[in-house]
């Protein structure tokens, strides 16, 4: 295990970078799941967030990217 960086600037920058990486990973993973036919409720449950939250965050982007979204349960 690596330890928390001793320089606060490095430790805080790592937080920012990890969030950015996680956001990118989330964008890619949600898109992948929806292309594979998952529905919003299942994606939301997998991420541990509400359906509304995941929809609000990703729907516009995926619709613009031409992903066919399922309306109902999945």
């Amino acid at each position, binding site marked *: 295990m690596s330890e928390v960086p001793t320089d606060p600037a*490095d430790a805080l920058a790592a937080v920012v970078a990890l969030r950015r*990486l996680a*956001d990118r990973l989330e964008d890619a993973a949600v898109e992948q799941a929806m292309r594979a036919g998952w529905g919003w409720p299942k994606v939301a449950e997998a991420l541990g967030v509400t359906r509304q939250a995941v929809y609000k965050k990703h729907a516009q982007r995926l619709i613009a990217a031409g992903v066919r979204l399922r309306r109902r349960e999945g």
Partner: protein
Amino acid sequence: MSPFDEYLHAVIMRAHQEARDDGAERIEVQHLLLAVAAEPEPTVRELLESAGLDVDTIRGALDREFVQSLSAVGVASDAYDLPRPSRLPSRPKMGTTGKLALERGVFGTARKKDLRPAHLLLGILSAQAGVVPRALAIAGVDQEDLAARVRHTITEKD
């Protein structure tokens, strides 16, 4: 619109694009920095070039900052071959660090009619912590020194 308003508008439009390309929901100060470097405005460009900065060197430094910050906690950013994010169709909003740069450089200082493109650069260079100071250090830029030269340019032309 005044020439400065036109400049600011053009920079924010570019920063929107940078944020979208980055998959970001908000325009942050690094997107503004990339935007002012890309905008063909001679004073700001010359100031940046005097420190060895242009769009490519800034982008490279930001990328390295990301990789270095992750590696400090044992994460290899190239461990994931992530696809480019699908772009948000809407315009990103101004984020906290982007707002700070605008407040410090543009809205908090000079009288409106005295505003020049260099004021915006000064606002960006006023960042005390975060991605931009770190990326500038990685690029070998003395941020204080560059900010002092920007201030000098502003007062010189008054």
